[in-house]
């Protein structure tokens, strides 16, 4: 340990950070935690795991996700040993993200988008783990989900998982012709959109049991997580974003302005704030490239009557 690092540890301990076993080493900001912070932003963890509306502590859980099955509350993922994930190991996180299974063996509800995160690279999971270890622990219990029968029967999640989830490495598929000269950026875009960014969790419609319908990938969802419609973002002119240029998409991701000069509100405004505006310009370009090469879906999303 360098002198500076040692000084930092002392400082953190004096400042009243929790000093459990190994706390002195895990509190260090390292290259891994820096990369992990980026993965954390790109994966949009903050948005669901924080109850922003009610001024909840970061990552202490509680945001309500309203779905046709009931209301989910994302749990506390701070390193608090009692209420958060302070007793987890890196293997536990890996299993949660890749398999959708909690340390106690229960399967998660797919409201936790492990179906997307399953494709995360080893390096990204390791870095994310490093970062999650150094966030401020919050001793607040997670809120229970409020689900209608029979969805409140936890054993069903295992059956759902068996039916709809196929674990495995992420494969973006062959690079399409219109991205031939930019294959690397295209693959990065695919990873950002389909794995880390889990865009399809809102922008792809779901079937009766809540599995996303990838035949209509990113073709819009009339019943998004806030009950409202989520637009079609495939390059279909008219019903999708086929008349947006790649630069239009980049501008939207960077500052939330669409080609009409209109600004995102609601859930997407949060995504722009917490995720897409914080990505590197190269990553925004990669997302724009990937979206512009998706199979267009002709599907107009209409608002459901309130």
């Amino acid at each position, binding site marked *: 340990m360098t002198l500076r690092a040692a000084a930092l540890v002392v400082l953190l301990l004096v400042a009243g950070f929790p000093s459990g076993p190994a706390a002195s080493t895990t509190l260090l900001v390292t290259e891994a935690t820096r990369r992990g912070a980026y993965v954390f932003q790109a994966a949009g963890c903050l948005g669901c795991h924080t109850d922003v509306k009610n001024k909840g502590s970061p990552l202490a859980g509680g945001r309500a996700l309203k779905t046709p099955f009931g209301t989910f509350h994302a749990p506390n993922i701070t390193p608090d040993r009692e209420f958060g994930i302070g007793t987890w190991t890196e293997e536990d996180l890996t299993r949660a993200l890749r398999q959708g299974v909690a340390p106690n063996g229960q399967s998660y509800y797919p409201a936790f988008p492990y179906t997307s995160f399953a494709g995360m690279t080893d390096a990204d999971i390791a870095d994310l783990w490093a970062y999650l270890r150094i966030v401020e622990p919050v001793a607040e219990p997670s809120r229970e989900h409020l689900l209608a029968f029979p969805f409140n029967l936890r054993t069903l999640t295992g059956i759902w998982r068996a039916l709809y989830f196929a674990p495995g490495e992420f494969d973006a598929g062959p690079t399409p012709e219109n991205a031939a000269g930019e294959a690397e950026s295209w693959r990065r875009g695919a990873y950002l959109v389909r794995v880390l960014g889990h865009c399809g969790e809102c922008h792809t419609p779901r079937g009766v049991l809540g599995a996303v319908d990838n035949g209509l990938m990113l073709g819009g969802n009339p019943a998004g997580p806030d009950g*409202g419609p989520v637009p079609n973002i495939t390059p279909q002119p008219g019903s999708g974003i086929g008349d947006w240029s790649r630069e239009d998409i980049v501008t939207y991701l960077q500052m939330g*302005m669409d080609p*009409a000069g209109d600004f995102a*509100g*609601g859930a997407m*405004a949060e995504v722009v704030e917490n995720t897409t505006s914080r990505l590197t310009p190269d990553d925004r370009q990669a997302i724009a490239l990937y979206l512009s090469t998706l199979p267009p879906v002709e599907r107009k999303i209409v608002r459901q009557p*309130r």
Partner: protein
Amino acid sequence: MKIRFASAVAAPVVAMIAVLGVLAGPALGDSAADIVKKRQETMKQLGANMKAITEFVKTGQGSAGDVAARAGQIAATAKLIPSLFPAGTGMDMVTDPKTGAKPEIWVDFTKFEAAAANLGDLAGKLQQAAAGGDAPAIGAALAPVGKEGCGGCHTPFRQKLDN
């Protein structure tokens, strides 16, 4: 300084106002549908101004004088916004044309007025920055106009309409 600025940008400002049209609040005798149409026109105009300003920040197209004029118009329009939302013109009351004005607007109208006033303040700051002519300062002043100004109203009070 103010005078020099005025002489430098007066002509473009006059031209701009001719191009962008004159601001209009609701008139006596307007039906709910008329008001919805009018405010949708107004929002489109705000959008066009934001787009043009963003274009300047990103690519340097246009001039700082144009930006100042457009930001001034956004600030002036923001003052009119509350008058464009009289009770009875929400999405639960008017179906033709469709409107995305949520009933929440009239639950706490003071909050709505404050959100509109905030847009005006932020656009005023952008106008000042543009009058200074410093591109990075303009960019820095633009971001909150979109995020907090436009977004500050759209998040709580607007349901995005279908294309």
